């Protein structure tokens, strides 16, 4: 006798009761309600929204041109300091460029890199993971070998080495991070696919005559989306931090482009005398990464019970 299934999709005692009695509430509506009820998620999403909007409307929000140098006005402290002025709310850097403007434009760099790198690595990692999880056997062995190889490489060092060979720039950073950060995608999608591979609806799709590409894209992928979204957000945060690291070390975005990592680097010589020069971009980075992590964690919490009950 085949065992009565206890897969996550079948109900607990309460679950089976609900199955028999559920009124049709639209799936998206229930999800939305759950998301709005999760405080971390709402907070993170709010912060993220502010930063994204600031980056989008940078030309309207920034009081000055971030590239505008004025050596006579260098290193003016921010507004809360005695010598500050409303002309430069967050002060200026060593070349007299307005800090607030650079901060706002710097958000663009961080977000672009975060999204682009996550997208590229997501495509690579998901493809590898789904193929490995679905086919198993030799395909899985090969891809697992590739994943293990990649995991054995220290990302920062490799990125540094490559960047120093090729020279740093926005494009290089995006491609580099895209090619290096796919491992978590691969691991997560691989195990999620493995769990689904033996589900009966996959067998049913095969029995109907669905081709393998169809099954991978239309049957498996939509069902691993929830896990995937969480990884996307987390890898975005990862990419942003890595870019900051690379730029700090001079191998990422090159001056005069405003990048938060670069801003920290440029200010490190005055760290003890004029701390705001590194504290402000550092804080900005921390807040952005925190927001993204809150969103990622929140999405994971919200999606976990979904479909299980």
């Amino acid at each position, binding site marked *: *006798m*085949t*065992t*009565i*299934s206890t*897969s996550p*999709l*079948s*109900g607990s005692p309460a679950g089976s009761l609900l*199955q*028999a009695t*559920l009124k*049709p509430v639209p*799936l998206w509506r229930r999800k939305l309600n759950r998301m709005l009820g999760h405080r971390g998620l709402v907070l993170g999403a709010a912060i993220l929204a502010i930063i994204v909007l600031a980056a989008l409307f940078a030309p309207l929000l920034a009081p000055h041109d971030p590239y505008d140098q004025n050596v006579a006005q260098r290193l003016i402290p921010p507004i809360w300091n005695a010598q500050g002025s409303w002309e430069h709310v967050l002060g200026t850097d060593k070349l007299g460029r307005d800090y607030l403007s650079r901060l706002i434009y710097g958000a663009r760099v961080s977000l672009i890199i975060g999204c682009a790198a996550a997208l590229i690595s997501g495509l690579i990692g998901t493809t590898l993971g789904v193929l490995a999880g679905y086919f198993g056997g030799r395909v899985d062995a090969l891809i697992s070998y590739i994943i293990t190889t990649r995991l054995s490489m220290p990302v920062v060092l490799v990125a540094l080495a490559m960047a120093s060979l090729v020279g740093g720039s926005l494009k290089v950073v995006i491609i580099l991070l895209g090619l290096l950060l796919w491992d978590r995608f691969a691991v997560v999608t691989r195990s999620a696919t493995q769990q689904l591979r033996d*589900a*009966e*609806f996959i*067998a*049913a*799709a*095969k*029995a*109907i*005559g*669905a*081709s393998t590409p*169809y099954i991978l894209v239309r*049957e498996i992928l*939509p*069902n691993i989306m929830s896990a995937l979204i969480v990884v996307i957000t987390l890898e975005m945060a990862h990419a942003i931090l890595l870019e900051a690291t690379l730029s700090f070390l001079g191998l990422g975005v090159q001056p005069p482009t405003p990048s938060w990592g670069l801003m920290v680097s440029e200010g490190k010589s005055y760290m003890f005398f004029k701390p705001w020069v590194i504290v402000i971009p550092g804080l900005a980075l921390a807040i952005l990464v925190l927001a993204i992590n809150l969103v990622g964690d929140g999405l994971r919490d919200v999606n976990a019970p979904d*479909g299980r009950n």
Partner: protein
Amino acid sequence: MNMSDIGTVAPALPRTDIALELCALSKVYALKRGMFKAPGEIRAVNEVSLRLYRGETLGLVGESGCGKSTLAKMLLGLLQPTAGNVLINGQEVDPTLRKDNARHIQPIFQDPYSSLNPRKTVSEIVGLPLKLHRVGSAAEQKKSVRKILDLVGMPERTYGQYPNQLSGGQRQRVAIARALILQPAILICDEPTSALDVSVQAQILNLLLDLKAEFGLTYLFISHDLGVVEHLVDRVAVMHKGSIVELDTRAKIFADAQHPYTRMLLASALTPEPGLGIPELAVSG
């Protein structure tokens, strides 16, 4: 309908038309036994030969590990047989050419909770076979979907719902609708009611009986529930450790089984008759 038969409602079958034939079908798994020993083998299905006549319901009974699910998977092209061949309507088929075979043979699985894609609506799930095989225009496909869902007893309000909004019985109806929409001649029912409540089971079994009568279907009915099997089938094949140990008509098997394993199976089936106690079976393994 001739009721004077040996207590059955179905008319006598013409035994000439073979819908499905298995010839020495085998599935052997290699077992690694360390680096120095030769690999062992597990014969999940051991040279099974079977004939399924058109219009009949053949019951396949056995316990877990006997190979009946492996057999079903091979028939559906989900597993590559190690040896032997499968003939559908007299023609030898390659079971792995699933798209071609889909129009002749379709499954109904046991678990109504995992046999439907949780991210698709009922009409999408049932309409998929038509889409994949490009049968008719979009409008015609929609019509067919409605017709078949109506036939299995699913109300219209459920067409746009997702599987997790349906009960177990409803999901199984959707699975049946999906299996039948390509009008296959043969249905492989792998424990279709085992995961359902008794009252729902009765509804689904009635549905299967109705559909069989209406469309002249042929069923391979795999189950461990002998009460259900006895109610539904014409012939019974008993499977044990990969081989068919007994194959006979329903009446014969249930009245006078020959093989000791069959006898043990029949003895352990607990019918709802109080006072009979629990049979004493030889402790095996």
